[in-house]
């Protein structure tokens, strides 16, 4: 089997010196795919993603990006390596304009990023319209678009989203998912944690159901949606 593009292999670890929250958990994603992490509250979904991003102390396990071992790198160094991360909250600069937010996303780039800016505006037309407005004045869905756009500005090799649809209305959620699919179609691997399991599984090429920090079920989104045990224990029928 070939190595996936990004993989967190058999990760065990927790915050600081605290107890392990993840137990031998494996998460992976390949180009063109949307990988989704779902699971009940407190299952360690966000923790698993933070582990891949280096915000957790791993007791064992490794993280590989494009074949390179990045287990010991700090989150900042991983950004330079090509990981784009969108935190769940506080993920925009509220006092800065939309365009400035995007510029800050490209801070580590030394080349001309006007092309990327146009791509992001093309993907999220509303942002172009509001590019001179302070991002803090936008609606919840628009803010999430700014946040995703900011992460895309580094031209990442992989995009990681921590509950991008938390606190937005169902209509906005559908729209956001559409955009995420569009991003994935460009060939960019997308790894995302979702609270809305059913909708997330519908768009997932690869899905992980976590229970108490361990892999409970793995498969494509369709497979898991069809899996009676997943339905019974987790999707409520």
């Amino acid at each position: 089997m070939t190595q996936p593009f990004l993989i967190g292999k058999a990760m065990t670890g927790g915050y600081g010196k605290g107890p392990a929250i993840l137990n031998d958990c494996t998460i992976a994603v390949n180009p063109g795919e949307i990988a989704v992490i779902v699971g009940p509250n407190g299952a360690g979904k966000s923790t698993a993603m933070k582990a891949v991003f280096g915000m957790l102390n791993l007791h064992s396990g490794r993280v590989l990006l494009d074949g390179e071992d990045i287990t010991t790198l700090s989150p900042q160094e991983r950004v330079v390596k090509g990981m784009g991360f969108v935190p769940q909250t506080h993920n925009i600069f509220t006092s800065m304009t939309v365009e400035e937010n995007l510029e800050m996303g490209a801070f580590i780039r030394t080349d001309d990023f006007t092309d990327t800016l146009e791509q992001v505006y093309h993907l999220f037309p509303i942002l172009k319209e509001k590019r001179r407005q302070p991002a803090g004045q936008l609606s919840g869905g628009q803010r999430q678009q700014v946040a995703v756009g900011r992460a895309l500005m580094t031209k990442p090799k992989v995009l990681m989203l921590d509950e991008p649809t938390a606190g937005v209305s169902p209509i906005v959620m559908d729209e956001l998912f559409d955009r995420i699919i569009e991003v994935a179609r460009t060939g960019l691997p997308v790894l995302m944690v979702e609270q809305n399991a059913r909708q997330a599984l519908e768009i997932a090429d690869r899905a992980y159901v976590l229970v108490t920090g361990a892999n409970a079920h793995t498969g494509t989104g369709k497979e898991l949606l069809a899996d009676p045990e997943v339905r019974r224990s987790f999707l409520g029928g």
Partner: protein
Amino acid sequence: MDLLNAFVALANFVLIPGLAYGSQLALGALGVTLVYGILRFSNFAHGDTMAFGTMAVILITWWFQSIGIHLGPLPTALLALPFGIAITAAVMIFTDRTVYRFYRKKKSDPVILVMVSLGVMFIMNGVVRFIIGPDDQSFADGERFLISARTFKQMTGLQEALAIRTSTAITVVTAVLVVAVLFWFLNKTRTGKSMRAFSDNEDLALLSGINPERVVIVTWLIVAALTTIAGTLYGLDKSFKPFTYFQLLLPFFAAAIVGGLGNPVGAIAGGFVIAFSEVTVTYAWKKVATYTLPESMAPDGLLQLLSTDYKFAVSFGILLIVLLFKPTGLFQGKSV
């Protein structure tokens, strides 16, 4: 004619001094607010840093004067200013490396950093008094007036005079220039934007690859420039005395809080709010009233709301009102 006289008196004693004082406060409050926004603590050493910077400028000015370098009608201090800023900047970077950085890395509580700034305040204060002494120092030279009272009266034939001192004009012009450059820097340059980003959301700034240490150093450089300029302008316009500079801490903080801590636009607005309140409340309105009111209503008293000795009470009163009614300030500063 009387109305014109009244207006001239008002301009001479309220508007122009308020404008100059407001500019000085705005520059000082900008320093306070930048440190608060980026380093996230109230810097109690700010007044004494200002005294230090001004002292550096004064010493260099004296040296220039002694070797015969002058700026013609302008005060020699302007020529010494860049050197004073450089010295102050060096001292502030040194202080950050040796003192503040340790607590920043440890992510100490802001109140601990405030304590630490008390220690820095003591040291700065001791150094300034040791080098230049605790007394008043004068270092202004060049033309004293742009328009003297007599010229104005001859020109206009009015009873009241509008005297514009060189130092006042320099203060206002410099402040406008400095503020323009600062806002250009913060809003248009990459480094400036990264400072705003860092102040807005530290974690996200780190995720975006902004180097916090670089942001901090740039902040101290700007603060060094702002304080030294503010202190020199204040010293030229009024006089230099280390203790007075320490006391300016209160109006600075009041201005920064009134505008909204961490918000540069707010600091400027706050500076002028405090300055004009102070000047209007402590001004004796008798003269203006005599010109504007009919003779029968001419006032007996000075019509002064508060004696100038209580100017701090004005800063303080405004501060209390803001804390009570709008703790985030007029321009939405950081959280309370």
